[in-house]
């Protein structure tokens, strides 16, 4: 997501709310309708833990080489975000080991935040639905 105004597709995952650059989301389909590669559990890869929940959808996120299927667990919303509302990851947090896939924060209110994620930078999971296949 570039600076300035833009759209973010957010997922209200039970672990935390995360979002991606909406312009790169090709489509969202039901989990049962998806028959391609095992979807990436973005929340689990980011460190949110594994939550088994069948009520999920698959978000196809465009990368340079392919459409990456992301597991979207929770309500999905399209939100307009201006550049001022986005905060970068503090250098100290990054140096202390925070995932490179975390691009920044959109603060929604006291103690409420959406984590902006770069799905292509998510590292392989320790365990998740992906490994339960």
């Amino acid at each position: 997501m570039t600076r300035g105004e833009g759209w973010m597709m957010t997922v209200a995952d039970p672990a935390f709310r995360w979002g991606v650059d909406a312009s790169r989301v090709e489509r969202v389909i039901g989990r049962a309708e998806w028959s391609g590669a095992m979807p990436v559990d973005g929340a689990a890869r980011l460190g949110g833990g594994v939550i088994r929940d069948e009520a999920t959808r698959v978000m196809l996120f465009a990368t340079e080489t392919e459409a990456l299927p992301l597991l979207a667990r929770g309500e999905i919303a399209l939100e307009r975000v201006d550049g001022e509302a986005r905060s970068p990851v503090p250098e100290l947090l990054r140096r202390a080991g925070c995932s490179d896939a975390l691009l920044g924060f959109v603060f929604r209110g006291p103690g409420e935040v959406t984590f902006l994620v770069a799905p292509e930078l998510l590292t392989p999971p320790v365990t998740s639905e992906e490994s339960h296949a």
Partner: protein
Amino acid sequence: MGAARSAQIELLPLGIGPIWAAIHAECAVEILGRTPWIPVPSASELIPGVIAHRGRAVAVLDLGVVLPDLPRLTARSTRERVVIARTSLGLVALPVEKVHEVVSVPSAEVREATLTRGSPFEVTIDDKAMPLVDLETILEQRGLARPGAG
């Protein structure tokens, strides 16, 4: 007179529960009221999350990781005060319960720690022995500081 002044250091005592610690007052930028902190997935114990400060994310530093007598931060726990402090890597937020007024003490009163744990140095303020926390040293010891910083 000038020499006497230069021998004074200004400290900011911070309280969490019954325990007090002091930081160098010159590091403190602002003291906020009750401000929720947000745990960040994949973050470390020392820097477990962020707070929103003036629309920007500020890294939270858990003093409980450094000072074993202090309780650790827990997810969604909110303390009464947050001290925003300056480091070579930008601002850090220190959630605490109490903040004392700045105290000027003779630098000779800073001594090697024998009564407190977690910092090599301690000082006594208002009859309370407390560790003297140097934020830059913490970052250096954890391999987080920029080479040559501090």
